[in-house]
């Protein structure tokens, strides 16, 4: 087989992509959204989900990757179909920031916090351990995830690179 240059896949909003062995998964500008990295080290299969909201209450539940609950569940299913084992999966999460400080803004600024809680709860329900996280705060994050090592990287405006 020919050697190919490592792939770099961009994960959009309400989107999920998987890569195995090497390459890079990247999702840009996570504000209140959360990037969830799921990883099976035995088969070096990595998935990155970019969710926007905590719970899927849509009729028909079509857009699975927009929500923490259906996004996590569907991603586990697709990873298992590619040879991953749920018992081996670990998670790293980043995002859930509050971009604007609004006095009396109701639940507007709390979407990030609600996302964080929903992601943690859904991962716990699936029995997946969060090995590293960088969540909350007030800054946007760009998240990279590398299947070769299972390592994540976070870039934020005006801050040094963070290893996740």
């Amino acid at each position, binding site marked *: 087989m020919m050697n190919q240059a490592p792939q770099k896949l961009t994960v959009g*909003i309400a989107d999920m992509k998987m890569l195995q062995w090497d390459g890079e998964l990247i999702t840009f500008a996570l504000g209140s959204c959360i990037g969830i990295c799921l990883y099976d080290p035995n088969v070096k299969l990595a998935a990155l989900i970019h969710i926007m*909201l905590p719970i899927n209450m849509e009729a028909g539940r079509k857009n699975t990757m927009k929500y923490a609950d259906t996004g996590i569940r569907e991603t586990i299913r697709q990873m298992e179909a590619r040879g991953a084992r749920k018992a081996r999966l670990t998670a790293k999460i980043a995002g859930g920031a509050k971009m604007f400080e609004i006095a009396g803004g109701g639940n507007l600024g709390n979407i990030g916090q609600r996302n964080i809680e929903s992601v943690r709860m859904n991962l716990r329900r699936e029995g997946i351990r969060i090995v590293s996280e960088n969540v909350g705060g007030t800054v946007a994050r760009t998240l990279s995830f590398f299947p070769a090592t299972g390592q994540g990287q976070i870039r934020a405006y005006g801050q040094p690179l963070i290893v996740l």
Partner: protein
Amino acid sequence: MEIKNYNELTSLEIDTLREIGSIGTGNAASALSVMLGRNVRITLPEVRIMGYNEAIEWIGGPEAITAGVMVRISGQMTGIMLAVQSLEFINLALRSMLSEEIHDYDELQDLERSALVEIGNIMISTFINALTGLADISVDLTVPSLSVDMQGAILTVPMAEYGGQSDYLMTIGGNFMCDNQVVPCRLLLSPDVRSLNFLLRKLGVLE
């Protein structure tokens, strides 16, 4: 007929919203003109209905840094209004208001930040006043808030707010020209679907 999603708008309804955008942005330009003591006009206003990732490309990519002033609308209409200010626009404002310029967003201190909040607030309020006068409705506005960060994350604020209702972001708004030069500053109004129906009915275009 009531719409259930932004992509169901008819061309008549979109034309009406564009007219709202034109009047709102025009009023904001007049206010800006008085504040800056310069001639300010508007470019052709737009009504856009975009998928999330399409919207991020439209604003100019996810990672570029920008300054956004946000106001939340409640009352008879619910929505979010953003003034997205480029560095060029910021310098135009700071030159007039504080006689200074910056080279990067990280030079924005408290004084500059409050000047940007104020200018964004006046533009947003003027836009909303024109809209509510036209449609004969009343709304409340929150205190404005500023964020200087990646523009993709700023734009996902209205997306996340109405993400449970729609896979689309709708924006009504326009850009500004100062002394015949385009100075990128977008005023973006994102109403929720219910308010959009209400607004269109008030304006007499929803059957």
